[in-house]
């Protein structure tokens, strides 16, 4: 009888997916279906490996603890030293495993936001149209640190604030009616580490994360067919961060919105893909037929 675990053995990642997992970013021009297949592959790998990171870490500490206990016991019964060595070996095994899982762990916004958004917008993007896209899945890394300062401590002993700027998604896609859409998403993370001493003289620490997601959407209508209704744009600008710009390749209307999330750890929540669609609907509602048509 064939062994079932052979049948469900995961396929090796494609070279492009492996490159994303290693470099944590990708830039390219590809048709929609290629982007979706590639990002879905990375998402599937991330979804399987992500839940294994925590258990692997716990096992490192578990086996290290066992190794220490057996080492102490070995001073009484020498043959227990073998168990200590085996435990230390297991700790090493899980350390390597943890490190490998960690090195391919990617930020989740691309699968929670971008991948779902692409599925919705597939309705409007022609199958052969090439989408230019830059996706960074590394999250708030040291390279993205833009500010670090000590705040007035107040009742605390020390407050350190760090700000990271993570512009993780830029894309431009042709739409089936000749217009083009643009999307930019930047996450700005602010993390505060507070340290204080409690009444018993023990030093305590607490971390607070804030995630500000700035979404900018743009629409370049096909001038042969459509243009923006300036009166409607002007009226709407009063309520929204909306701007109409003349560019060499036509007029672009741009809408920016910000979404805030807070957590004790790196916030997992982000803007919903439906919200992005809603923003494009705002731009779509400002169009009128161009005089040329």
């Amino acid at each position, binding site marked *: 009888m064939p062994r079932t675990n052979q049948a469900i053995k995961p396929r090796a990642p494609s070279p492009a997916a492996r490159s994303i997992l290693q470099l944590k970013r990708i830039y390219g*021009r590809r*048709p929609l*279906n290629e982007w*979706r297949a590639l990002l*879905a592959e990375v*998402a*599937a790998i991330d979804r399987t490996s992500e839940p294994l990171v925590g258990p692997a870490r716990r096992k490192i500490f578990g086996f290290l603890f066992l190794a220490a206990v057996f080492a102490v016991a070995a001073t009484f019964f020498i043959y227990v030293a073998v168990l200590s060595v085996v435990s230390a070996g297991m700790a090493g095994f899980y350390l390597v495993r943890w490190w490998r899982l960690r090195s391919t762990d990617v930020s989740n916004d691309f699968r929670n936001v971008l*991948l*779902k958004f692409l*599925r*919705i*917008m*597939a*309705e*409007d993007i*022609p199958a*052969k*149209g*090439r989408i*230019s896209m830059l996706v960074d899945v590394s999250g708030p890394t040291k390279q993205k640190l833009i500010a670090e300062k000590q705040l007035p401590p107040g009742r605390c002993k020390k407050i350190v604030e760090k700000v990271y700027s993570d*512009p993780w998604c*830029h894309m*431009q896609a*042709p*739409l*089936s*009616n*000749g*217009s*083009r*859409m*643009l999307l*930019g998403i930047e996450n700005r993370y602010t993390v505060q580490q507070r340290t204080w001493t409690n009444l018993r003289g023990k030093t305590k620490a607490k971390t607070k994360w804030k995630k500000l997601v700035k979404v*900018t959407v*743009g629409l*370049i209508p*096909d001038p*042969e*067919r*459509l243009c923006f209704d300036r009166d409607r744009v002007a009226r709407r600008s009063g309520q929204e961060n909306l701007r109409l*710009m003349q*560019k060499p*390749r036509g007029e*672009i209307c*741009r809408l920016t919105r910000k979404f805030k999330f807070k957590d004790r750890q790196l916030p997992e929540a982000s803007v919903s*893909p*439906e919200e992005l*669609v*809603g923003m*494009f*609907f*705002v731009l*779509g*509602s400002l*169009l*009128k*037929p161009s005089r040329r*048509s």
Partner: protein
Amino acid sequence: MRDPTQGGICHSKKGLLFLEDCGELAVDTCSLCARPVCAAHRVVGPEGPVCPECYYRDQRDASDEDDDTEEDDLDADTDAPLSYPDRDQYYDKYDYQPVVTGSSHYFSDRDYRTFEETTEAPTKGPAATAGEGPEDEEGADREERDDLDHFLES
């Protein structure tokens, strides 16, 4: 044998932000409204083949009765296109009237902005060539990077 589609093209609409004629060859007609539909837009229901719009209207009427609307599972890594109820749910949620090009006066129970095209829809214009055919890859890449830079600058 009589061709039920009368050699026609599919009268369904595709798109979300912009609605356009599907334009594929029809393989059947809707058993409720007699509109020609292509293979992708044919939904086989208990009444026989129906068009997506009739199917949705049916579903919506049914869900109004038992008030049990099904949400599309965006989490699923699937290539399946959005189902038609979703399209209408987006329009309802964001109060959007999509821009319709092509044959007009098509939908009866929803407000669409139909921009009448005085001449035939440009089939060989930028719409038809967007992202298709041979193109100067490097040039297009540079232009798009410029557009993105302009677009993101504050």
